[in-house]
């Protein structure tokens, strides 16, 4: 007997789900399947917001949420499950409150922690399907491997600037994420949404596509996105579809798999261990407070390595703009006789610039720790953080 047959809908639930119940493809049987279903959603951000909202509204019985972030003002342009009054609050508490208000019938299980190789299998084992709403490569490979090892579907979505991808990976039925992308890009080559930006509605579109696929999988109706990669371009307004195949050489779901358990995903993606102090040891840094003091005393060549549109938003007075990508070709514009301080938004891109400039002989270059955000916090509160 399917576990959904044990479910009963109250008269109130019958009213709530009436538009589902009158669809022959869903009906009472389908709605009970939704009620009996459990979904693990990794990430309660851009993709996670519409996902959680629609899954809860649809009556998915149990929703697990994994996230450890706190809501920032810059999240609200797209993370519509959170609201202004909750800035500074944990995303999971905020999401849980919203979902309870939307549909109190749904059980929400919050895992306020990082999804790691140590806890992932235990958490995911309790759910029927897994949804990838994460924002980084190590966690995406982790989510994939967990889904493959537990024989569960992985409802995938990913976004960048104006473009999104969606698919359903289920190694038992077709390709997995590693079949599509055997290896991640080296760190630094592909910018994150925090660096590259993202159109606010884009995660709304891709996240609802994921919710649609998850609901179809639970109901067992329609044609899931198995073996198909859906590409969405918000600017051209195109949906395109690519064929995906199971890679016989896939290290986890191929004919002779070499991965039989979870690995170190940070190392796999070429990232240093989470020991940040060591990571920044080689990059000389200066704090915003110290920089402000020094600027009064001596001449400093202040180098802004952000993009021109960011420079227009805010800058430190006296800075020269040379975007990181152009640095190599514009070394001649750097006044090497003065001490050099490089900055960007939060200090990540400028750390790369400092490493590069040291290699190019500008050995007095320092990185502004925390970027222009730290400058706004410590020196000039009139500078907007974005």
């Amino acid at each position, binding site marked *: 007997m399917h576990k959904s047959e044990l479910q009963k809908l109250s008269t109130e639930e019958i009213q709530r789900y009436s538009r589902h119940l009158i669809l022959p493809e869903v009906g009472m049987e389908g709605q009970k399947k939704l009620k009996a279903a459990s979904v693990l959603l990794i990430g309660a951000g851009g993709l996670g917001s519409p996902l959680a909202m629609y899954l809860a509204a649809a009556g998915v019985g149990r929703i697990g949420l994994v996230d450890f972030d706190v809501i920032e003002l810059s999240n609200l342009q797209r993370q519509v499950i959170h609201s202004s009054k909750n800035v500074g609050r944990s995303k999971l508490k905020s999401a849980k409150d919203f979902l309870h208000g939307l549909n109190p019938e749904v059980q929400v299980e919050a895992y306020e922690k990082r999804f790691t190789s140590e806890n992932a299998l235990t958490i995911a084992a309790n759910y029927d399907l897994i949804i990838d709403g994460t924002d980084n490569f190590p966690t995406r490979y982790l989510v994939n491997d967990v889904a493959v090892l537990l024989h569960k579907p992985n409802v995938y979505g990913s976004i*960048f600037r104006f473009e999104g991808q969606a698919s359903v990976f289920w190694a038992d039925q077709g390709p997995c994420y590693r079949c599509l992308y*055997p290896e991640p890009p080296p760190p630094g080559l*592909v910018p*994150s*949404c925090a660096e*590259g930006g993202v159109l606010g509605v884009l995660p709304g579109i891709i996240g609802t596509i994921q919710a649609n696929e998850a609901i179809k999988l639970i109901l067992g109706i329609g044609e899931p996105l198995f073996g198909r990669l859906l590409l969405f371009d918000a*600017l051209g307004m195109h949906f395109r*579809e690519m064929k995906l195949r199971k890679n016989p050489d896939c290290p986890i779901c191929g004919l002779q798999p070499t991965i039989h358990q979870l690995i170190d995903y940070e190392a796999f993606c070429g990232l240093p261990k989470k020991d940040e102090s060591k990571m920044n040891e080689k990059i000389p840094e200066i704090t915003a407070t110290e920089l402000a003091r020094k600027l009064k005393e001596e001449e400093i060549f202040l180098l802004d390595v952000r993009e021109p549109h960011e420079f227009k938003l805010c800058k430190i007075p006296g800075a020269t703009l040379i975007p990181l990508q152009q640095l190599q070709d514009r070394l001649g514009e750097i006044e090497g006789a003065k001490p050099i301080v490089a900055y960007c938004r939060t200090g990540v891109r400028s750390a790369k610039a400092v490493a590069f400039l040291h290699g190019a002989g500008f050995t007095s270059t320092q990185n502004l720790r925390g970027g222009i955000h730290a400058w706004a916090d410590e020196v000039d509160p009139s500078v907007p953080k974005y």
Partner: protein
Amino acid sequence: MAIIILPSALRSFAGQQAQVEVAGSNVGEALAGLAQRFPELRRHIFTEQGKLRNFVNVFVGDEDIRYLQNQSTAVRANEVISIVPAVAGGK
């Protein structure tokens, strides 16, 4: 001429163009032509050894060239080549 559709992430290296027409009778020639026209694109698509990067997938029509003849896959006039790199954003 084949048409190469570029992803958002690479457009800034190609004068913000979403698609570029290039000459070439197969995928390798078309991509080489693209990299020649936009030298900054090269390192995003190819390794230093000139191999297509592992996180960059190339499709002719809707078929992955890894399951065709890789870079030797023939392209007809006006055929669409899509470059689809891995993206990780979600928040």
